């Protein structure tokens, strides 16, 4: 029990950190940072758009790690981790697409366009929605966990392949602002716009980890109840 309490405590610390960083992040993004020279105020959506997709990729990477660990060691803990991360990841991917649409309308004039990175993000959402559906449709727990792990791994490894194919196909999105092969991060974006973005990325990472810890707790409780119902002690 002491272990569970400790875990809960660390989860709450993440929550407090997320809250703190989000408050500071909102302040610097909405008030402190100057408006963009070309796009004006609407560009401030960037301060949640990029953090959302960073959080989503972090979650899908955790799905990948959890899936690999599960196939290797067969511990329910890793499966709960992967399953929970997939749900949080889907949430942040959906948020990214919605925010992007709202940003796209005033800047590009359309809600949606078949650009490489938009397409990739939408496909990512579909792959992991498929993952969640698979988990709910296989009744046998262990088999569901194994199949889920396989989809989690293939889904994650498929991301660069999809990226490559849709990138060749077409691209219209503004070039990546932060992570570019040809320049260092601080050369692409001016410092007054960069540091609010960094604060918001940290905030979203904490937020996603907090949500993840909550979801894991739910998963563990489910597991314990199942164990008790079967007559064993968890």
């Amino acid at each position: 029990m002491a272990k569970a309490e400790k875990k809960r405590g660390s989860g709450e610390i993440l929550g407090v950190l997320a809250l703190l960083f989000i408050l500071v992040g909102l302040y610097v993004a909405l008030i402190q940072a100057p408006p963009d020279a070309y796009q004006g105020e609407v560009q401030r959506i960037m301060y949640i758009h990029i953090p959302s997709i960073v959080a989503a990729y972090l979650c899908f990477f955790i799905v990948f790690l959890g899936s690999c660990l599960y196939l290797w060691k067969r511990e329910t803990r890793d499966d709960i981790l992967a399953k929970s991360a997939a749900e949080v990841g889907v949430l942040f991917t959906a948020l990214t697409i919605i925010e992007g649409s709202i940003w796209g309308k005033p800047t590009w004039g359309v809600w949606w366009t078949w650009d490489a990175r938009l397409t990739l993000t939408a496909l990512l959402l579909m792959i992991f929605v498929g993952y969640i559906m698979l988990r709910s449709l296989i009744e046998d727990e262990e088999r569901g966990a194994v199949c889920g792990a396989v989809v989690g791994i293939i889904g994650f490894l498929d991301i660069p392949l999809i990226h490559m194919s849709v990138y060749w196909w077409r691209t219209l999105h503004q070039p990546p602002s932060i992570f570019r092969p040809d320049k260092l991060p601080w050369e692409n974006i001016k410092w007054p716009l960069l540091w609010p973005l960094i604060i918001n990325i940290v905030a979203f990472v904490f937020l996603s980890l907090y949500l993840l810890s909550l979801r894991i707790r739910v998963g563990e409780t489910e597991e314990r109840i199942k164990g008790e119902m079967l007559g064993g002690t968890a």
Partner: protein
Amino acid sequence: MAFLKQTAWLLWKDLLLELRRRESLLAMFFFGTLLLFIFHFALDVQPDKAADMAPGLLWLALVFCGTLGLMQLFQAERENRCLEALLLSPIDRAAIFLSKVLFNLTLMVLLEIVVFPLFWVLFNLTLWERLPWVFLYGLLGTVGFCVLGTLFSALTLSARGREILLPLLLLPLMIPVILATIRGMEIILRAGDFQESLPWLHLLIGFDVIFLTAGILVFEWVVES
């Protein structure tokens, strides 16, 4: 050598079963032909536009028919728990996977041999000399489809609502193969230049190799439990 022999025996078993039952293949043939008719009614394709639309329509027909075939793929193994018997026998798991892929591929290629020329006839396409190149792309795309399809067909064996789950999982992951195939076919039909479409051909072969390797590696986990 033993591995190839096992694969060949398993493939022979599946082909023999199909030859006697003729369930999958006939259904796929008729469904494919039917789809071509439906496409024509839905889009009212003019002869001058047919070449532009051919790659997309052909792929739609193949994906629909292919999914139909995938549903049946492990049907024989499912009945009377034959899959477990197969897993208990001293056969390499990779051979089981490969034989299923090859069986599925055989069905799809037979389907393509009928559907592709039929498309040319029904839609009044005159570019007969480009058909072999289009067929090459179709074949390579089908390899990718069969590899991933076989894997996911095995994966969803014990799931409820398998019919909807299988395409839902398969299609997003298949996008690289679908895109490369369609773009390649498009360049050939528009420009008639095989050289120009080569980058897509290389990409497609790359995807096939990656998916095949990944499939062989993970298949063991998919069938074990």
